[in-house]
């Protein structure tokens, strides 16, 4: 199984440009998440989804949008890119909580630089 697949792996954007970070999972997980990781800051939740058609804001949603039209896909849209959005973005998926071995499966990340 591929698990969680993120594309692209690297991207350089100019200020004001837009792009979509793709995320797909093949584990039939209902829950999906987008986090950004900045040095020394841990991972901050941007958006999450508990199922197709349902999305909600996390801790740092400003400047981003998401959609969830299928169980498998959870794209993250950046509109009008800003230098503050330079970060590593991780998509993750999970089963509903319960059971001690419940946990997130993360993708390998997208490293985005805005110049």
């Amino acid at each position: 199984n591929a698990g969680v697949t993120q594309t692209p792996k690297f991207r350089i954007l100019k200020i004001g440009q837009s792009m979509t970070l793709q995320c797909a999972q093949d584990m039939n997980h209902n829950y999906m998440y987008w986090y950004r990781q900045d040095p020394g800051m841990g991972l901050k939740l941007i958006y999450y989804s508990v199922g197709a058609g349902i999305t909600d804001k996390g801790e740092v949603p400003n400047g981003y949008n998401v959609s969830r039209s299928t169980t498998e896909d959870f794209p993250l849209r950046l509109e009008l890119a800003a230098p503050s959005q330079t970060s590593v973005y991780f998509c993750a998926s999970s089963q509903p909580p319960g059971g001690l071995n419940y946990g997130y499966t993360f993708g390998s990340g997208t490293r985005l630089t805005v110049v």
Partner: protein
Amino acid sequence: QQQVKQSPQSLIVQKGGISIINCAYENTAFDYFPWYQQFPGKGPALLIAIRPDVSEKKEGRFTISFNKSAKQFSLHIMDSQPGDSATYFCAASMSEETSGSRLTFGEGTQLTVNP
């Protein structure tokens, strides 16, 4: 408050030594406490997790100690090996299925195990 505080920020240990990473949380509604391990260029991967009904969980060389009254939990890596060199994140969440059981992460600890 949803914060999870992690220390130290970095840790250097000799091969065969014990690595200890600590986390403290504020929200008493948290009921799931995982640790994630991240190697450079990769996404975090679930290492071990605990729920507050037990005070300790051991898996191989990795042990979580949990102190509910102090709202603290820690990761102990026994007989640390160079291959354990990675960034470690603690996290916490509430098992609310309707809210996606969102994980709140600590800031991360960069562990280096010298040969």
